[in-house]
């Protein structure tokens, strides 16, 4: 009893292409639904959350002194050995202690953004920031020196993140860049 009618039902289903119709209706629904693709970099850009692990940044304290004490713990803990730190004596008040980094260099091509350096850092000097447009045309830009890392990143820490902003795509003689307009924020379901 169980087999007969179900087989007939199966046949009718096949003959009327019901499965096809089902599949087609699903794809049609998607066809008319909104696309989830961002129009990045032309019009939209994704602002990551704070927990995002992008390019490194070196923090300063509220007095503008470097937090890094060149303890080299980040160098030790780095699994890819991409960080180079050379300490030096400096009591001019550049850092919070009299030991500062003469060189603080990260090779982004080798870094895997695991965030161990963050954890290891006793002074919370090194943080993985929110810049993620790291592509470049030659190898020189794969290493970031201390000077660059000390500059604040394009998205200030005050912004929560996790939304899409309107952006513009700019071609300059130095290269291309995507300038986000942080005022126009919108949530997006992904």
């Amino acid at each position, binding site marked *: 009893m169980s087999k007969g009618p179900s087989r007939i039902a199966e046949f009718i289903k096949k003959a009327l*292409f019901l499965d*096809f119709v089902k*599949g*087609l209706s*699903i*794809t*049609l629904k*998607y*066809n*008319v*639904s*909104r*696309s*989830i*693709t961002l*129009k990045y970099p*032309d019009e939209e850009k994704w602002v990551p959350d704070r927990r995002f692990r992008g390019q490194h940044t070196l923090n300063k304290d509220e007095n503008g002194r470097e937090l890094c004490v060149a303890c080299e713990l980040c160098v030790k803990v780095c699994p890819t050995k991409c960080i180079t730190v050379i300490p030096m004596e400096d009591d001019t008040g550049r850092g919070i202690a009299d030991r500062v980094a003469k060189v603080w260099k990260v090779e982004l091509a080798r870094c895997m953004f695991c965030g161990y350096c963050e954890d290891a850092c006793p002074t919370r000097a090194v943080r993985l920031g929110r810049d993620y447009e790291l592509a470049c045309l030659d190898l020189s830009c794969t290493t970031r020196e201390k000077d660059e890392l000390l500059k604040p990143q394009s998205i200030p820490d005050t912004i929560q993140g996790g939304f899409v902003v309107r952006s513009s795509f700019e071609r300059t003689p130095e290269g291309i860049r995507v300038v986000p307009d942080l005022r126009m924020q919108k949530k997006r379901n992904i």
Partner: protein
Amino acid sequence: MPDLATLLEILIIVVKVSVISGILFSLPLPLTWIERKVAGHIQVRLGPWRVGPHGVLQPFADMVKLLIKEDIVPERADKFLFKLAPLLSMIPAFLVFVAIPFGEKFAIPFVGKEITLYLSDMNVGILYILAIGGLGIYGMILGGWASNSKYSLLGGLRSSAQMISYEVSMSFAAIGVVMLTNSLNLLEMVRSQSGSFLDWNIFYLPVGPVWFVIFIIAALAEINRIPFDLPEDEGTLAAGFHTEYSGMRFSFFMLAEYVAMVTVSVLTVIMFFGGWNPPLDISIFHLVPPIFWFLGKVILFIYFFMWLRFTLPRYRYDQLMTIGWKVLIPLSLVNILVTGLMII
């Protein structure tokens, strides 16, 4: 010296030919764009976006890329056939349009001269289309063979086997329509379907829809579109018969494929959906020129094929053969019988 009227006739034919071939040559430009857009949106993506507004200039960029690409002929290839194959694939696809009508007549404004919207009113039209359309396969077989590459050869073999298997049921479907409309002539076919949409062959119950399904499946297999694009199955055969082709020669194959898709859409509309007849026999609908009804339906079908392409997975090769020989052909035979009985 022929008189003026003859010259004018010849001129009209020349113009018509050049218009049609011009349209056909430029057809892949919008079609590739549309196809990629449809693909994108069905996959909840955007599709081409960056070249021009909404990426409309993308096909032109592609064209430029194809034109300036290096033309590679493999060292051990059969050079002559390798170069001939893309043309063999393309020319029949164009020749088919000699017999395809786009409408009845069209009066040129201000001049008062009527011109017909077809090149040739062949009394064996459908047969001609099936016959010539079938020739395109040689481009694939010979191209696949001449490339001297395993993938290409397998692609060529697959396409020939596929074509032989499905040509039969496609012809049966054509025969079915011929039985329904009582003519091999495409114009007659359309004329016999005039009236409301209930007069269309697709609604000739119960056989019409069956013929339609048979025709669509067979046609999909004939023009190598998903779900039957085994000859260029990138999962197993690199790019199938055109693996070794690059540049313009490759684009000829693409051109042929798109033209074939248009042909099938046009044929479907003519054979099953009343050609340029409006869906309802009311005066408002007759205000719209018939050619627009025709083009509208054709575009719907082109969309349908694209829609199918991004919905269905590819069939396995043995499934393809099973569908062809064990389902479609017996079904066509039974359906011919039923059609015959209905006509009597």
